[in-house]
């Protein structure tokens, strides 16, 4: 990590955002109960305690995706990252956690670091993750067995690497959307939101 106390470079920004996604996805999986709570372990990051999975398969999958995502963040070709939660019985999409990524493409040309401290960025990230944790209070309970998938929206001209394939957007029929906080490293801006299937009672 090319962290400096005074500014932030494109590479450092990509690292930070990828790290945020790693912790954010873990938090979602833990909070929404996609994987059993006993497969998670407690770690301290961003001055708060977070849950990280110990499931080796899941770990491998996440590291795979995050390393690829880091490259794309560095190239500024990624537009969105979506965590899709699907019901296994009906194959219905129940929740979509969408992270819109706005890249400042000018930073690719000028390698001069931006004036924003790591501490301030981490403060913003912390508040986003807190909000993710708090969403459990209003999201409908996932009653059936569910699985998740990670979709990445990229530029059209991007070459799809091996082991990756194109997918549909996995939209929710009749959804409710809630915007969450956003954070910016002054190079990447990440807007978070969650969409969930409207239940009949509403």
């Amino acid at each position: 990590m090319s962290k400096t106390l005074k500014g932030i470079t494109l590479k450092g920004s990509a690292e930070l955002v990828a790290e945020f996604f790693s912790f954010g996805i873990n938090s979602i999986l833990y909070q929404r109960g996609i994987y059993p709570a006993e497969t998670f372990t407690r770690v301290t990051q961003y001055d708060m305690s977070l849950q990280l999975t110990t499931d080796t398969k899941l770990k491998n999958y996440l590291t795979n995706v995050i390393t690829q995502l880091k490259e794309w963040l560095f190239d500024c070709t990624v537009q969105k990252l979506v965590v899709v939660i699907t019901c296994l019985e009906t194959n219905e999409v129940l929740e979509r956690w969408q992270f819109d990524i706005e890249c400042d493409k000018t930073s690719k040309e000028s390698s001069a670091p931006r004036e924003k401290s790591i501490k301030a960025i981490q403060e913003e990230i912390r508040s986003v993750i807190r909000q993710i944790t708090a969403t459990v209070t209003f999201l409908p309970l996932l009653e059936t067995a569910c699985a998740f998938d990670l979709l990445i929206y990229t530029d059209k001209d991007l070459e799809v690497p091996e082991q990756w394939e194109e997918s549909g957007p996995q939209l929710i029929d009749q959804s409710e959307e809630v915007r969450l906080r956003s954070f910016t490293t002054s190079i990447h801006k990440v807007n978070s939101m969650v969409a969930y299937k409207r239940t009949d009672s509403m």
Partner: protein
Amino acid sequence: MDDMEDDTTIISTLRSFNSLISCPDRSVLEAESSYGRSDLQKLYTKRVEMEEAASRIRSHTSLLQLTQEKQQMELSHKRARIELEKEANSSSRDLQREVDRNRDFLMKIKRLDEREEKANQALREQIEKNKTLKRNIEELQKKANEKDLKLAEGEQTIGELKDETRRLNQQIQIQESKFSTQNLEIQALQEQLDVQNQKYQNVQSSQSTSTESELKIKELERRLALQEQDSVIVKNMKSEVARLPEMEREIKRLREENTFLRETKENSSLLKEETEGLRRKLERMERVIEEKLKLELEKEKLEHELQAWENIGQVTGLNIRKPEDLSREVIQIQQRELTLKQQNYTVNSSIRSVEKARAELIPEISQLRAKAQEEQKKRENQDSLVRRLQKRVLLLTKERDGMRAILSSYDSELVVSEYSPQLTLRVKEAEDMLQKVQAHNAEMEIQLSKAQEEAGTFKLQAQMVAAELEDLREQLKSNTETSTLATAEENATLRQKIEELEAERQRLEEQNNILEMRLERHNLQGDYDPVKTKVIHLQMNPTSIAKQQRAEEVEQLRAECQRLRDRLRKMEAGGAMSTDDTTLIIPPSQEILDLRKQLESAELKNQRLKEVFQKKIQEFRTACYVLTGYQIDITVENQYRLTSVYAEHMEDSLLFKSTGPVGTGSMQLLETDFSRTLTGLVDLHLFHQKSIPVFLSAVTIELFSRQTVS
């Protein structure tokens, strides 16, 4: 040929006719003969002859008629022949047609035959198929029969199973009844248990009291230890008390010392204060001395300075003896400075005014320079003109000289008259030249006039343009005046238009906002622009893996379900044949598990009951042994062996056998080695008194007496 045939036909018809006529006559003749032959015979014969004659005549006539007829017939025949020929022709044609038709028919027949063959073949095939189908049907029927048989077997097995279930139900009922009895027993046992519990509680209460008492004992022991400690302390105290007077003496001594020390301490503190005051004084004195030194140094410095000032006064020659003089001097200098400053200001202002004048003069100079340049240009032009004119003058003088020379030569030639042609030539030349020059001059004049004209036109144009400009200016002015009235309406319409456009703009803005909101919403829902964006994910993502696993699981379960179904079918087909080659183990159902548990508990109860029974029986037996003096054993069914307490040998025993139904209690003594020795008692008590208890007590008394005697 035909004629012959016709003849024969006629003859044949005649014959038949004759025969036809002759026949009835004969019959009539015969009939008449039967009635009266004698009288009538002659008449009859005459009549016959008459009739024969008549008939001959008739036949003649008829013959004639016939010939006529024959002729007619022949005619008709001919006609007929012709007709027949015609007919034959037509018929031959018909025949031909028929033959053709026949061929056609034959063809058709052939075709039909072929079709028939095909149909036959189809039929055969169909028949074969039918046969096979029949066979199939038969097989199916057989199968159905087999199935029916199996069904019947199955029903039988079901019936058997039902019977079995009934039997099992009965058993269960029996078991239940047993359970109820056992429950009753258990209740009895529980009551006993309660009694035991009460006892146990009593014991516990006694134990608790004992523990309490133990605790008390412990406490008392502790108190004892404390008291011992106290006694030790008291001893120590006593020894200390013994030392007390000494201590008091010491204390007195120490007090005295104390007072002495206090006095000395006061003295020392006084001395210390004094020394402190002296030290302070010393310090102050030192400081005063230092200050004095400093002041002396300053004084010297000031003296030096004073000397310097005095020196300055002497050097400058001014009357500076005192500081007042100096101040006066300074004031004078200041006044001088002020005057100089005033002068300076005036000079500066004059400079500024001069500079202003200069600045004003600069444009004038430039103007003048421009003028001078113009003048110079003019002068140059003039110079060039002068030069040109001088050149011309030179040329003209030359020409004039030439002309003069020519004229002189003329004059001379007039005398000589030899050069006249030459002179005339030259004059001509000169004249030509003059003409040319004049033409040139005229051209130049024309050009000049043209140029002047052009200049005039340009001027006119300029004037016109100026006039137009003026007009336009006027128009503009008028316009500004008139437009105020005319544009009011226009203004109104324009305003309306503006308002409309504004309204439209607002509407469009709203629409735009709505569309943006929708776009935002779509974006929130995860929609994207497929032109710019694409969505990708890892092939092996958790969702697809989970789905795959699920599918596999479903497949497995389906397979298992199929297997189980097959098994069930086999079971149904094979009836009670529960032996199966598949090593599948059906997990026991909940019911079976429950039943097993019940069974286990029941067995446990049974076990407990058995134990209790054994205990009770043992108790009962010992009680019987002790009370009656006989140990009763059941060796064989319905046989009881009694062994007395007082038996001399272990094998001395009496054998009884119960006779009749169980419970009636009629017993018979069986012969043993021991009973043979008691024949007297047997006779007396069993045969006479018929009482077994009396016999047994007699035996007891006998044996007891034998033992005591021995």
